[in-house]
C-alpha cells in the first residue's frame, strides 16, 4: 500500500473541500477501496474519513425517503419503511456481498464501488479502466461476469452493485455536495457513464464531490422482485439480475419498472422494454418480446455469451412471478 495522508472531516463541506485536492478519496466502509489500495489499483495521496459525518439518518421527505449516504447496507435493508414500500431495494441489498460486508458498506459507497473485472484487479494485465490506453485483456479473456450491453471497444466491465440496480428501478436520485459548497441532484443515468473512450471514469462526479444522500420518490406499490442469478448461493456477484416493480390493474400492467444487473456497464434500464409492457395484458408472448427488446443490441464476448440466453429466460420468469401469468 502506498503511504497516504489521513484526514477526518468535521462536516460535509470540509470533507468536500479536502477531497478536492489532487488524488484524494473519501473513505467510509472501505470495503472496496481498501482492497484496491492494497494492490495499488487505487493510490490516493489523501484519505478523507467521512464516517463521523451526520449522514446516517433515513427520513421521510417529499413523499418518499431521504437516505443518508452513510447508512449501512444492513441498516438500509432492515429499515421498516424500506421493507414495506421499497421491497425491491431491501431484497437487492440482501442479495449483495455478505453479512459482514453489509455491516460496513454504506449507501453512498455502494454506488461508487468499482467493477469486479478480474483484469482490473490484476496489475500485470492490460486494463483501460485502470490504466487508460493500455488495452483490454478482458475482451477476449475470462469475461464470464462482464457486460453484454453498454460496452465499448475499450471496456466491457460490468457494474457490480445490486443496490444500484434496485435504485435505478425506483428512479432514485443522489444528492451531492461539491467542494465549492453547492449541491446538486443526479439521476443514476446522470451519475454513471458508459465506458466509451474514457472507461477510467465510472461517474460524472467532480473532484471532491460528495454523495450526501439518496432520494427515493414516493412508493410505487405493485409487486416488487429482485432476482439475482449467480455462481454460488451467496457472496458472488450477479451473472444477471432483475429488479422489477410491476403493478397490475384490471388485467393490465399499469406500473412497470425494470432494471438489470450483471449485463450492463452501468445499472441498466431500457425505456423501450417498459413501454412495450406498460398498459398491456401480461402474456408469455409479450414477456418474450420484452426480453428480445432488452437484448436486441446485446453482444457476448465469448465466456459471457451465456448471459444472453440466460436473461432471455430470467426476465420472463420474473414477469411471470410478478403477474401470476404464465401462458
Amino acid at each position: 500500500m502506498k503511504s497516504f495522508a489521513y484526514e477526518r472531516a468535521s462536516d460535509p463541506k470540509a470533507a468536500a473541500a479536502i477531497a478536492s485536492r489532487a488524488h484524494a478519496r473519501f473513505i467510509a466502509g472501505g470495503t472496496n477501496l481498501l482492497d484496491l489500495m492494497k494492490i495499488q489499483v487505487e493510490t490516493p495521496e489523501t484519505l478523507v474519513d467521512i464516517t463521523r459525518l451526520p449522514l446516517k439518518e433515513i427520513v421521510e421527505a417529499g413523499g418518499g425517503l431521504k437516505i443518508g449516504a452513510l447508512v449501512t447496507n444492513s441498516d438500509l435493508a432492515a429499515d421498516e419503511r424500506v421493507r414495506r414500500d421499497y421491497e425491491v431495494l431491501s431484497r437487492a441489498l440482501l442479495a449483495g456481498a455478505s453479512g459482514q460486508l453489509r455491516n460496513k458498506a454504506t449507501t453512498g459507497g455502494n454506488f461508487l464501488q468499482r467493477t469486479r473485472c478480474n483484469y482490473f484487479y490484476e496489475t500485470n494485465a492490460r486494463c483501460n479502466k485502470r490504466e487508460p490506453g493500455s488495452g483490454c485483456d478482458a475482451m477476449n479473456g475470462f469475461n464470464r461476469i462482464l457486460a453484454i450491453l453498454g460496452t465499448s471497444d475499450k471496456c466491457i466491465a460490468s457494474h457490480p452493485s445490486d443496490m444500484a440496480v434496485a435504485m435505478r428501478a425506483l428512479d432514485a436520485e443522489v444528492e451531492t455536495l461539491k467542494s465549492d459548497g453547492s449541491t446538486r441532484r443526479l439521476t443514476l443515468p446522470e451519475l454513471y457513464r458508459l465506458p466509451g473512450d474514457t472507461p477510467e471514469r465510472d461517474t460524472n462526479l467532480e473532484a471532491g464531490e460528495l454523495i450526501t444522500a439518496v432520494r427515493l420518490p414516493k412508493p410505487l406499490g405493485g409487486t416488487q422482485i429482485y432476482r439475482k442469478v449467480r455462481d454460488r448461493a451467496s457472496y458472488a456477484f450477479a451473472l444477471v439480475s432483475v429488479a422489477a416493480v410491476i403493478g397490475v390493474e384490471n388485467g393490465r400492467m399499469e406500473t412497470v419498472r425494470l432494471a438489470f444487473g450483471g449485463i450492463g456497464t452501468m445499472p441498466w434500464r431500457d425505456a423501450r422494454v417498459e413501454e412495450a409492457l406498460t398498459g398491456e395484458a401480461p402474456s408469455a408472448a409479450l414477456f418474450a418480446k420484452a426480453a428480445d427488446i432488452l437484448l436486441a443490441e446485446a453482444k457476448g464476448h465469448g465466456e459471457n455469451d451465456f448471459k444472453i440466453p440466460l436473461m432471455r429466460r430470467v426476465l420472463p420468469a420474473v414477469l411471470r412471478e410478478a403477474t401470476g401469468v404464465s401462458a
Partner: protein
Amino acid sequence: MDDQTVFKMDEPVGETRLDTAAQGLIGKPLDRFEGPLKVSGRAPYAYENLAGDPNVAFGYLVLSGTGAGTIRSVDTSAAEKAPGVLAVIHDDNGPRASADPNDQRPAAIKGEVVHFGQPICVVVAETYEQARDAARLVKVDVETREGQYDLLANRDRAHKAQNGAMQAEVTKGDFDTAFANAEVTLDVTYTTPSQSHSAMEPHAATAKWDGDELTIFGCYQLVSTNVGQLAKTLGISKSKIRMLNPYIGGGFGGKLGIGPESVFAAIAARQLGRPVKIALTRQQVYQATSRRSDTIQRVRIGTTRDGRISALAHDTITSNSPGDEFFEPTGISTVFLYAGENRQITHKLAELNLLLSSSMRAPGEAVGMLALENAMDEMAEKLGLDPIEFRRRNEPEVDPQDGKPFSSRALVPCMEEGAKRFNWADRPKAPASRREGEWLIGMGMAAASRKNLLQQSSAAISLSSDGRCVVSTDMTDIGTGTYTILQQIAAEILGLPRENVIVKLGDSDLPQAPGSGGSWGANSAGSSVFVAAEGVVAKIAEKLGVKPGDVTMKDGTAIAHNKRTPLAEILKGETITVTGTFKPGRTFKDTHQASYGAHFCEVAVNAVTGETRVRRLLTVAAAGRILNEKTATSQCYGGQIFGIGSALTEELVVDTRTGLLVNHDLAEYHVPVNADVPQLEVVLLPERDPIASPLAGKGIGELAICGVGAAVTNAIYNACGVRVRDYPMTLDKILPGLPD
C-alpha cells in the same frame, strides 16, 4: 528412566485397551481441546510469533508478471531507495513455488520464469506496508518466450508420467480385446479444472537466526520432511534448524512442502541479522504455492448384458510445470474399487507453464472419482440397473489387480445403510420427472474409497507420579483434531482423565512422526502413542510384579489381581518416559487396505436458470475404529463441502493466452459458502480393522471428499437430464439442456 519400544505390525492385533476402554474415552465425541485457544486468539500462528519484537523485519515477495521466459535482470535500485526498505534480495536459489511432499528441495528459480506469478525476489522493510509498496518498484526484465498454458491444446504432447504416488500405469489382462468384445460399452471423457487448496491461513513464516542456528515458525504439515527440505535449500545441516508449527490454519495439502515464504524469510533473516516475517497475500497463495492439476480423464467400461464389468480403463492426462514430475493420481481407486478381469489405468503428464501441481486433499481420488463414479452412473443407466445394484454386481472378493485380500471392506453395507436412511427407493425413476415449481428434483449416489496409508511414527510419553502425562511428537494438527485424539489414546491406555494428558506437537525437537497428509496421521501417530503408552503400562506392571495384560489402568490407578494402586504409590515421585515407535509391517504388505463409504445427494436444479442447490447430502463411511466421533464427523463434513465445491463452483481459471491464474482471490475462486451447504448428514458405520493398525482404524480424513462430487452431478442428471462432463457444473453448462 527413559526407554525405547518399537512395534512392527506383522500380525493383526487382538483385543487391546482401546477395546476394553476402561477409561471410556476412546471414540467419544470430545471437543478439540485447543479450540478455545484458537477462537480466542491465544494460539499463535506462524506469522504471530515474535509479536511486538521491534527487531523483526517484514518481507514481501515480488512475483513474475509473465508466464514464461528468461530473467535478464532484476533492477532493485528504486525499491532499495524506498522508505523503510532494508534490502531487496534476489537469490536464484529461491524457490519458484512450494515443494512437493517428499525430501527434495523446492525447484529453484535459476534465472527462469516458468509460470505467471512465480516468486522472483523479496523486498524486506521495517514494516509490511513499506515492503509491499516497494515491491512494486522492482523492475524485472524478462526475455519472454511463448509458453504453454492450455492442457487441452497440449494433450497430444503429454508423456508417460514417472511413477509417483502410484504406478503411472497399472494394467491387467487385455483391455482392448475385452472392451471390443463387451456386450455393453461406455466411452466417455471428463475434464476437471485446476483447483486451489484455499486454506484459511495464508502461507506464512517467521525466521530467526542465533549464530548458525535457525528457528523457523512455519505452517507446514510434515515437520521432519520440511526441515530436510529447508536444510537442503539453505545448504545447512538439518540439526541447525528448529521448526515450530504447533498451530496450522488449514493445509489440505497446500502446506505439505515448504514454500517460498520460509526460504526467503530464512535467507533474508540471515543476510540482515534480524528476524524476518513473510506472509503471502491471498492472491500470492493462489499464484505462488501449488495447485491441484487440471485433468482430462477418459473412462471406458465394458460389461456383460447383465452388468458384470469385463473391461475397465481410466486414462488420464494431467499437467505440471517444467521439471516437476508429480502427477495427479486419478486412478488410485479405479485399481481396486470394482471387479473386472481386464484393466488399464494410465497417467500422462503434459508440461505446462503453470504453477506447480501437487497434492491437494485426496490427491487422485478427489477428482479421479468425479470421473469414475460419474461413469458408473452413466453405465448403470445404459444397463437399466439401479446404480447401487450395478456396483453390487461388481463388488470384488479380493483386490482385482493383484488378488490380495482386503483387510476390511464395507462398501456394500455403506451403500445399503445409506439407501435406507436416504429413502433411495423414492428416487425419480426417470431424469427430469420430478418438479416443484421452478425446481427440478433429483437424487444421485456415488461410492467413496480412499487407499489407507500408514507410516512409521514415534512419540514419547512421560508419566509422572502425580498422574499427569505429556505426549510429545513432531506430528502436526492442521485443524483436524490430532491434539485431541492423541490425548484420548494416551488417556485411555494409561487410565487418566483427559485433562491430565498434555500433548505437544509440531516441534522438530520432538520424536519424528510422518505429519499430516494422506489421511495417515491419526493411525500412524496414534499408533506410536499407543506403543509408547503400552510401554509405560509395561513399566508399571513390572513395578507391580505382574504381567502387563493383567493390569487395568483406570482413574489414575493400576488395578491388578483385585488390588487398586494409585500411580503416586507406584511411581513414588519418579517419572517414567517411554518413546514408542510404530512401523508398518507384513499386515500392510499382505493385504489391501482402504476406507469405504457411500454418498447420497438430493439436488434441485432451477428450470429457468440452471442454478443447482444441494438439498440433502448423506455420507455413510466405514474406516475402522473411530477415535473421536466428533472430529471424524467434522472431517467428513469438510470432505462433503469440498465435494460440493468440486461439483458446482471451484475452478482456478487459467487465461490460456498468458498463463495468468485469473480468479486469484476468495471473491472469485468460489469455494462453497454456508448458503451452498445444506444440513449435512454423516453416519460412521461401526468397524474394527485389526489388520490395518494397532488402533484397528483406517484413514478417514480424506474419505468423504472421494466420490462426493459425483453424487452431486449424478443427482443433477437425475433432476434435469443434463449430463455435463466438464467440471464444475456451472449453470451455463446446464442451461442449453433445460426445457424451454
